[in-house]
Structure formats: structure tokens, C-alpha cells
């Protein structure tokens, strides 16, 4: 038996879905969180019957006629896949708009059960709804639910099973005026539908407070979305998130974890003692334990980050961020909606890229999808933390400035895309529903944190572990499968593969094969950069234990890597602003849907990483030493070529819009 969950955006579908299936799908207090359908089975505890019930969570829709891409998803699913029952989740605090969709669903010849959700809010607002009357008028069962605390769910499922296979009467069948409208006069019919819904609502609902007046949420918005205060508040909020995760709470917890990891490593080393061949013990201790341990040590930072992001997403602030940023994003050809994927991207770029589906305009959607990876994601945090710890005395400014650089690149990129694709594209309107603020649920944020943390550990134990082991083996052996001698590292397999690439990186200040190898492994997972560095330089000790108080050790690490402060910064920038991990590129591919855009996007990312690193290194070296760094000229040539190509695309003569229209006519 298949149940589909349909309803207005932000009405509580995904929360309900999580509650009855036990899954932890992404929830957020703004319209447009769910962009794809999700399936799951009903938990055994809730359903006593025999059948296996499959639940499908759909994106929110205001009506059955699809306008946004999410609405299309819902509409197509219901029409093509013919679920057995539709549970229509209705936000009880807004009946007059929600019931429009309800009555449309009732005409599809699929049994419907209405879940009158958010009853906790309804009670708080002293709104009285006559449920029985509503049920009678709609000709379908109505169950009061509150998906946040789980109320009414069992009853909902029971009713759902009851209606399977039944035929429900359509609403308003008694209304002659309604039936009088023909299929062609769609607008007229829908207007009449609205009118009938309105009178129905008046009949069953008693409100104490008129909603058109200003309320608490609006007053908060006066400040938060203020013309001048909005941006600083947003900047402060983001800074708080990063500061807590990277400079205070995160590292504090990480300290304990790295202590354990290191103790574990030492314990194993002691166990093995002298009897084991150095190659094998090195592989196990430095390669596997060291490499993975280096990465896992950063787990607390990432978990704190996701926890805080979860709080922010739940509060309802995200919609306001879109409003605040709309003015500025319009100037670069995007809209306020584009900021949400980017904020999500600070956790992980993949859900951020998927969130671009809520953007209607195709060009804007693609641009946003392409630019979202420039916001440093959770996986890049270990890289930032490592470098800021080793080279910059743990200054909090390194991390923060990386985000600003990301923002700057995004602005630049948006402008470039605007120029290249021609500004003749229609301006799309910005409209966003503003949900009520609510005190974010700690439970939900913890769940999000837990699921991300679990995923991270799984990733570390699989992909990163395999990569590190491979890297270690490749650096321990030459092509003849002979063990590499001390000091002869350059003869290893790894060195010979990475060296050609490292030559390209000389103008950027980090032309060592080890660094090139680390950057390359970063494409598989950005955490690999840290892991590979740990393996390749055998500096696991420093990274694990003293990473955040690396004063004595820093010098050693720095000299081991052979990097000056400037080139370290260049390397950091390079890794942060090149194309993201393959998984994210895959997500980009799915959203861009155009090989041309994908190629353009990835090349842009590659080029950007190279150019920015080049600038940082050369200008930095010039400033600190008065002379350009190595490989200045070849690098300059390469950079000029890249910039030149982009400029060409931006300013080439295109047929003006008028001519295009004439051609089309």
C-alpha cells in the first residue's frame, strides 16, 4: 500500500514523514526544503496491521496545476504513480489557502485523508476548528495531528487504511454554481473554488486574533530584515556559527578526540613492537590509523557546525536571509532565493546544490548550482583548521576570511555568468513565504548533527581509509615493487605520478609532488587533503595531538612541507576554491543538465582556484620579500590565457535582443 504525502510548502510533511518512518530526512522551517520525493516504510510500532505500507514524501505544492518545479514533481507523481491513499497535510493555521489544494486533490479519484497539522500552534493561537463539520463538508476523514510531537499519527494511519479502495465524493458537489463552470473556464472555476473554500472556513473556524495585524514574527523581522541592519546581522550570525564550530567549542571537543586517537595509535605501535616489518607497521600506523585519525579528529568541528546550521534552519531565519540578500543578489543577476543553497553549502555543498531546484529561472538556478561549491563546506573545514593551526597560530581570521573570499568569488562569478549569457534574460520575480519564527528544536538540530556525523565517520572508514592506504602504499614502493629508501621518496610510485602535476603548480608556490598528490586526492573527498598530507609527510603526531597548540611543532611541520606562510595560504586557497569533490560535481551535473554548463562550471572552478592561488602567492611573495616567486612568468602566461578567454566570452558581440526577437518573429 502506498501513501503519498501532499500539501502546501512548509506544512509539516517531511516532519510527519520522519515521524512515521523513523527516517531523518532534511527538515527546515522555510518553503522549499524538500525538492525531491523520498520514500520509506512505516515504522512497526505505529502500525499494527499486516500490510507493508510505503510512504512517499513529496515537495510542497500550493495547487495541482504546476508552476514551480516542486509542484510539478508532486503533480506528476500523483498522476503517474497513482498512490493508494493521499494524506493531505494541511497547516491548520492557514485553512483558507490550504484547503484549495485539498479540494483539488479530492477530485483526483484517489482516496484522501486530511491531516490537520500543527495543532499545537492552533491551540496556542486559540483558534477553534470544527473538525467534524469540515470532515462532513469535504467528504473525507480529517485527523488532527501535530507532527512535531507525534500526536494523532496512529489514528491517521488507521484512517488511511480504512479509505483505501473507497470512492469519496468530490467537494462542493452540492454547489450548483461550482458545477456550472466548464473545463475551459478554468480561472472562473478556481475563483469560485476559492470563494467556496472561504465560506467553508468561515463556517468551521473561529479565530481570536486577526492575522493581518502585525505579530511577534513581524516585529522581529523589522530588525532582522532591516534595510541597513539586515546584512550585519546576517554576517554576525554566520560568524557566530563558524566561530563556535572552528575556534571554540569545536576545537575544544576535538582535543579530547585527537588525544584518544593518538593514544590508540601509540598503543598499536607498542603492540607491534620491533617484530613486524617496518613497511607493514608503517602502513597500518601511519597510513591507515594516522591518515584516518587525522581526518576523524575534526569530527567535533563538523558536528558543531551542522548542529548550529540545524538550529538556524529550524528557526525560520533562512527565509529572511533570502529577503535581506535579494537586493544585492539582484545586482549580479540572481535573486534572494540563491542565498539559501549557499548557506546550506557551508555544511555540505550537495544538499545546497539540490536546494537550487526551488529557483525557477533556469539560468539563475544553474549559476547558483555552479557557485555554491565556492562556499567552504564542512569537508573543507579540516583543511582550514589544519593550516590556520600550523601556519597562522590558530587565528580565527583565516577561517572567516576564507568565507569572505568565497563570497567575493561568487559575486564575481555571478557577474561573469550574467555577462556571458547576456542580460537579456527576463528578470524573474522574487516571492517567498515567510513562516513564523519558532524557537529552534534542539532535538532536531541534534538529529541533523548526528546523521551528518555518522555519515562522516562512515566516509572516513571507507573512502578515506582506502585512499590513505593506497597513497601510503604508493609512496612506499617504487614501480619495481621495491621498498623506497629513506630520503629517496622521489622514486616512489606516488611521486612519479604526482610530479608532472606539481610542475603546473610551481607558479602557485607549492610545486612539491606531495602537495600535488594531496590536492588531487581532494577531488575524491576534500578531507583527503588532510589525510594524504598526514600520510605523505608522516606527521600524524603533530596533527593529532597538538594541532591546536602547535607552537613548537608548527615549525617542524612547516619545514617538512617546505612552505612559506604565503605559499601555505596559496595552497589553502587553491584547495578551497577548486572544483569540489566528485560527489558534489555529480550533484552539479544532475542540476545543470547541460554538458556545456557542466564543462563551463568545472573549468571556471579550476581556473578560479588556479588564478586566486597564483595571485595570493605572487603578490604575497612580492609584498613579503620584494620579489616575485618562482615560476612567475609561465604562471602569468597561463593566468592571462584563462582571464583572456573569459573576457572574450563576456564581451564578444552578440546579436542584440531586438535582432533576436525579429528573428524569432
Amino acid at each position: 500500500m502506498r501513501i503519498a504525502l501532499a500539501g502546501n510548502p512548509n506544512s509539516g510533511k517531511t516532519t510527519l514523514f520522519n515521524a512515521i518512518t523513523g527516517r531523518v530526512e532534511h527538515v527546515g522551517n522555510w518553503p522549499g526544503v524538500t525538492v525531491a520525493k523520498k520514500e520509506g516504510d512505516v515504522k512497526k510500532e505505529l502500525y499494527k496491521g499486516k500490510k507493508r505500507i510505503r510512504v512517499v514524501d513529496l515537495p510542497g505544492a500550493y495547487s495541482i496545476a504546476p508552476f514551480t518545479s516542486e509542484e510539478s514533481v508532486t503533480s506528476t507523481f500523483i498522476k503517474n504513480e497513482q498512490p493508494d491513499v493521499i494524506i493531505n497535510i494541511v497547516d491548520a493555521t492557514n485553512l483558507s489557502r490550504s484547503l484549495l489544494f485539498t479540494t483539488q486533490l479530492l477530485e483526483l479519484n484517489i482516496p484522501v485523508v486530511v491531516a490537520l497539522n500543527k495543532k499545537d500552534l492552533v491551540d496556542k493561537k486559540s483558534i477553534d476548528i470544527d473538525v467534524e463539520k469540515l470532515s462532513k463538508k469535504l467528504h473525507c476523514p480529517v485527523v488532527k495531528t501535530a507532527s512535531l510531537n507525534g500526536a494523532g499519527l496512529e489514528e491517521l494511519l488507521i484512517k488511511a487504511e480504512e479509505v483505501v479502495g473507497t470512492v469519496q465524493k468530490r467537494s462542493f458537489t452540492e454547489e450548483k454554481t461550482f458545477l456550472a463552470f466548464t473545463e475551459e473556464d478554468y480561472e472562473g472555476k478556481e475563483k469560485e473554488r476559492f470563494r467556496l473554500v472561504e465560506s467553508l472556513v468561515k463556517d468551521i473556524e473561529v479565530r481570536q486574533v486577526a492575522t493581518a495585524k502585525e505579530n511577534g514574527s513581524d516585529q522581529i523581522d523589522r530588525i532582522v530584515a532591516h534595510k541597513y541592519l539586515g546584512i550585519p546581522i546576517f554576517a554576525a550570525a554566520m560568524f557566530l556559527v563558524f566561530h563556535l564550530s572552528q575556534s571554540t567549542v569545536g576545537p575544544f571537543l576535538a582535543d579530547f578526540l585527537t588525544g584518544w586517537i593518538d593514544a590508540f595509535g601509540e598503543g598499536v605501535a607498542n603492540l607491534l613492537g620491533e617484530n613486524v616489518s617496518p613497511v607493514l607497521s608503517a602502513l597500518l600506523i601511519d597510513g591507515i590509523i594516522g591518515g584516518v585519525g587525522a581526518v576523524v579528529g575534526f569530527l567535533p568541528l563538523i558536528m558543531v557546525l551542522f548542529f548550529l546550521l540545524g538550529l538556524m534552519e529550524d528557526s525560520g531565519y533562512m527565509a529572511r536571509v533570502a529577503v535581506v540578500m535579494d537586493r544585492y543578489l539582484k545586482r549580479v543577476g540572481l535573486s534572494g532565493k540563491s542565498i539559501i543553497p549557499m548557506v546550506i553549502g557551508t555544511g555540505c555543498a550537495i544538499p545546497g546544490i539540490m536546494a537550487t531546484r526551488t529557483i525557477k529561472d533556469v539560468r539563475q538556478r544553474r549559476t547558483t548550482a555552479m557557485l555554491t561549491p565556492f562556499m567552504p563546506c564542512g569537508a573543507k573545514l579540516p583543511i582550514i583548521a589544519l593550516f590556520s593551526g600550523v601556519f597562522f597560530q590558530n587565528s580565527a581570521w583565516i577561517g572567516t576570511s576564507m568565507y569572505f573570499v568565497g563570497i567575493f568569488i561568487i559575486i564575481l562569478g555571478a557577474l561573469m555568468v550574467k555577462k556571458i549569457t547576456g542580460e537579456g534574460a527576463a528578470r524573474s520575480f522574487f516571492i517567498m513565504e515567510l513562516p513564523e519564527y519558532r524557537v529552534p528544536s534542539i532535538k532536531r538540530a541534534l538529529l541533523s548533527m548526528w546523521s551528518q556525523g555518522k555519515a562522516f565517520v562512515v566516509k572516513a572508514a571507507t573512502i578515506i581509509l582506502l585512499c590513505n592506504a593506497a597513497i601510503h602504499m604508493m609512496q612506499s614502493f617504487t614501480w619495481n615493487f621495491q621498498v623506497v629508501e629513506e630520503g629517496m621518496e622521489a622514486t616512489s610510485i606516488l611521486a612519479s605520478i604526482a610530479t608532472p602535476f606539481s610542475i603546473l603548480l610551481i607558479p602557485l608556490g607549492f610545486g612539491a609532488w606531495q602537495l600535488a598528490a594531496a590536492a588531487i586526492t581532494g577531488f575524491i573527498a576534500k578531507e583527503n587533503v588532510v589525510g594524504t598530507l598526514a600520510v605523505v609527510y608522516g606527521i600524524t603526531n603533530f596533527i593529532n595531538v597538538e594541532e591546536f597548540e602547535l607552537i613548537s611543532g608548527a615549525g617542524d611541520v612547516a619545514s617538512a612541507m617546505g612552505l612559506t606562510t604565503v605559499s601555505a595560504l596559496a595552497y589553502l586557497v587553491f584547495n578551497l576554491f577548486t572544483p569540489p569533490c566528485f560527489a558534489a560535481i555529480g550533484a552539479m551535473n544532475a542540476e545543470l543538465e547541460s554538458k556545456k554548463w557542466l564543462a563551463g562550471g568545472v573549468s571556471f572552478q579550476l581556473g578560479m582556484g588556479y588564478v586566486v592561488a597564483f595571485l595570493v602567492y605572487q603578490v604575497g611573495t612580492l609584498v613579503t620579500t620584494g620579489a616575485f616567486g618562482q615560476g612567475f612568468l609561465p604562471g602569468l602566461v597561463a593566468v592571462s590565457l584563462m582571464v583572456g578567454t573569459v573576457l572574450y566570452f563576456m564581451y564578444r558581440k552578440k546579436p542584440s535582443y531586438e535582432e533576436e526577437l525579429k528573428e524569432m518573429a
Partner: protein
Amino acid sequence: MGDLLVLLVIVGVLFMASWKLYRDKKNGIKCSGCAYGKTCGTTVCSEDKSYKKSTIPVLKK
């Protein structure tokens, strides 16, 4: 003797990692360790891509 033990441990660990990846692949999870591994890159009804193309409203139904 110690060598063999270590070797076994290493192989065991690597094997378990690969096996987990293999199992994920079979379950359709696109990338292990990503919390969104299941929904990554999938549209709703994979046969029906029409929702992404034009957005001409289908009002007359």
C-alpha cells in the same frame, strides 16, 4: 608471525571498507558517507524529466 598478523589486520580493514562501498552501490546510494547519498542526483520520477524543462503552466486540464 607478527608480520602475518598485521597483514591480516590490514587486509581485513581494507576488505571491510570495500565491502561497505560495494553494499552501498547495490542499494543505490551514490556516495557512501554522504548523508544525502540516496537522493543525490536523482529526480523524482526518473522517467519524467518534463518538470525541469518548460514551466508553461498547464492550467487547462
